[in-house]
């Protein structure tokens, strides 16, 4: 039962994508929603099995590694799969309104959207280094094409730059995979971990692979492609880029490091990765503070928030793993909400210059509220998901007496408060020009109903995640790296 459910996760959206391409546009909405909705019961079945203490595995085509490819779902991959479902479900709700299936843009959007969903699920399930490469290529290429959907020259340029850097990163990853296969004779991630000894080859291969993954994860100083790509993409695309697409490479990085990277088990490499994270937190936050456009501000905030994930490598404890995994969830949900709200405001105001936000709370209260709630989680204020994540991370840093990391985490939250409050203060607290005050009789939300609801729902979820963190953490505990005890 549970192994078949893994197949549903990948095949349901994929079949829906093919059907959408062939069927007439009026069937698109139903097909797409069915493809995405079917993954929920499948996830539920797998989760039940994993909570029962099982690791759900299936050897595809009946060929067990090293001959074939295995799918493997533990608590870690399932946590990521649930994040995928939640983000995709709400962003799809937004896209139903912002990319209506009968429009030209909608006809381009939905097939690629569904293929992206299938490939993200396939990536989180895969236990095979080369299969991870293929899924990663699929995710990147789909993301690139979706950035360009709007057709604006700036978006095209951003997409092209993302494509070129992404291809270079893929090449690094692929070269490393070839080296690892040559040395171990297997592509299965866990078998590579068992067979790979220490030595120059292991170090070279892992260093190459990690470099490629860092480029795709936009970790400073390899982040140059991210702000434009995430800032210029259409709203739902930005949301899923920041919430999921940059996380998939971090997921592979963590898997590789803690499950297969014994050969790199020295303090220096871990410290360097942590240092990159610290620089990302400070630089990304300051860059966000000085932005003059809302979507670029949110994009730089992603650069900063991704930095926290890198602190896992030097801390390397159970507490840090739980904290970072929870941070990936909390940031994913909150950032998707933030990008959707920003896109709604951009669509409503005609510009996302920060000055234009003055008085926006009167006309677009739902979207401003969604942005503010998501901001609470990004800043790490209680009782949000972001608070739980950062509190646990602080605790982990404290336990291992990493005072420098403690300082960086605290500073990051303070800087995040600056850029979030900059937006919120403009929207709520400025004296309002007469023209922006709502006139009686006009409906403020009007045509942005579903899109605003999607943003608000995700933002509320980002808060709720903090109150209802216990079940999520117990799922995470079932996917701890080898050698870490709950």
């Amino acid at each position, binding site marked *: 039962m549970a192994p078949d459910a893994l197949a549903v996760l990948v095949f349901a959206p*994929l079949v829906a994508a093919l059907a959408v391409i062939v069927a007439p546009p009026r069937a698109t909405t139903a097909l797409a929603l069915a493809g995405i909705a079917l993954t929920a019961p499948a996830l539920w079945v797998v989760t039940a099995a994993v909570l029962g203490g099982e690791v759900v595995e299936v050897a595809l*085509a009946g060929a067990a590694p090293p001959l074939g490819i295995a799918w493997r779902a533990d608590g870690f991959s399932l946590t990521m799969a649930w994040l995928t479902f939640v983000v995709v479900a709400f962003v799809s709700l937004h896209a139903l309104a912002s990319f209506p299936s009968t429009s030209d843009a909608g006809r381009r959007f939905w097939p690629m959207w569904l*293929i992206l969903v299938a490939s993200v699920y396939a990536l989180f399930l895969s236990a095979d280094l080369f*299969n991870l490469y293929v899924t990663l290529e699929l995710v990147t290429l789909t993301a690139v094409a979706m950035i360009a959907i709007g057709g604006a020259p700036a978006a095209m340029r951003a997409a092209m730059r993302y494509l070129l850097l992404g291809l270079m990163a893929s090449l690094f990853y692929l070269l490393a995979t070839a080296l690892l296969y040559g040395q171990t004779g297997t592509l299965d991630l866990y078998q590579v971990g068992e*067979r790979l000894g220490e030595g120059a080859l292991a170090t070279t291969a892992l260093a190459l692979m990690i470099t490629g993954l860092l480029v795709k994860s936009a970790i400073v100083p390899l982040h140059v492609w991210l702000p434009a790509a995430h800032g210029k993409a259409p709203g739902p695309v930005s949301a899923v880029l920041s919430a999921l697409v940059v996380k998939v490479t971090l997921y592979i990085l963590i898997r590789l490091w803690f499950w297969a990277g014994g050969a790199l088990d020295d303090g220096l490499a871990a410290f360097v990765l942590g240092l990159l994270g610290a620089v990302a937190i400070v630089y990304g936050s300051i860059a966000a503070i000085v932005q003059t456009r809302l979507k670029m501000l949110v994009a730089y905030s992603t650069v900063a928030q991704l930095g926290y994930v890198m602190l896992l490598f030097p801390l390397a404890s159970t507490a840090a793993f739980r904290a970072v995994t929870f941070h990936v969830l909390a940031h994913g949900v909150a950032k998707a909400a933030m990008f959707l709200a920003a896109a709604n405001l951009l669509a409503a105001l005609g510009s996302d210059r920060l000055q234009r936000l003055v008085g926006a709370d009167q006309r677009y209260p739902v979207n401003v509220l969604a942005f503010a709630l998501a901001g609470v989680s990004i800043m790490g204020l209680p009782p949000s998901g972001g608070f739980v994540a950062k509190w646990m991370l602080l605790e982990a840093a404290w336990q291992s007496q990493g005072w420098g990391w403690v300082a960086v985490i605290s500073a990051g939250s303070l800087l995040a408060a600056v850029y979030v409050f900059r937006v919120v203060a403009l929207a709520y607290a400025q004296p309002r020009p007469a023209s922006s005050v709502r006139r009686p009789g006009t409906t403020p939300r009007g045509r942005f109903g579903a899109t605003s609801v999607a943003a608000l729902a995700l933002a509320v979820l980002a808060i709720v995640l903090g109150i209802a963190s216990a079940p999520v953490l117990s799922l995470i505990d079932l996917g701890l790296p080898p050698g870490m005890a709950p």
Partner: protein
Amino acid sequence: MTVGVVVDMMLGLALVALSLRVVTGGSLFRDIVLFILFGLLVALSWARLGAPDLALAEAAIGAGLTGALMLMAYRSIGADTEERPVRRRPGVALVVAVLTGSLVAVIGLAALGIERVPDAAGDAVLEALPGTGLGNAVTGVLLVFRGLDTMLEMAVLLVALLGAWTVLGDARPGRVHRVDRRTPLVGSLLTVVAPITLLVAVHLLLAGTDAPGGAFQACAVLTGCGVLMVLTGTLRPTAVAGFATRLLVVAGLAAFVLVGAGAGFVGHAPMTLTGTWAVYLIETAMMLSIALTMTLLFARARGLRGEGS
């Protein structure tokens, strides 16, 4: 020193020299032509290394189709300006060269230390191959043992086409510079070459189960036929993807998905091919899908129609 070693050394030197010429040449057009030549030499190298499947794929796709796409792109960006000189920045080139050189050196040095392991996936493939009814290990890996990879690669190709359609926007299909078919040589070339390419493609497809060949090599040959027909105006680009086009474009991925997911319903693991019929079905569908996709990309079109229609 045997003749083989001399040939290998000449190939190696020629590859380095050619790649140098490609990046230091003064004209974009010549660079493209040299790049195609480079691809052919890489194909020869694969053949020397005993990988005929790779050699065929490299010659057909790496040199042939990529070259055709590059020439097409060259024409569309260079149509207004005849052969403008390429601006080079020696500083940047030096940095890139040093970085790439050290990367190659590091990887090469690391690869020297590789020892053959006893329980490798490659050995497992040769052991399990007789059970599949296939004689070609490459087809066995691509379709049977690691079918998931190939299925997702088909999705990559589909996304590439969808992405190209997105970038194409509302633009009308690109003007293809057509060759007049009344030119004696062109007309007879078409009538002779088109049927032969079809024959070769089908042969490669069928041969792929037991000998070097398969869907990827076959589709490249078929695409060559498609490109020829577009260039001579036998097929004309259109701005709308009709039902048949959309169906054919997804056919390869769809066949894979249906067989792969269907296996789950009859009690097998997902992606299990229950017989050689599945291999033939998927390979045929893939060949048609890839050939159409590549021809559409070449023609910068959403659809194709016959000359008279």
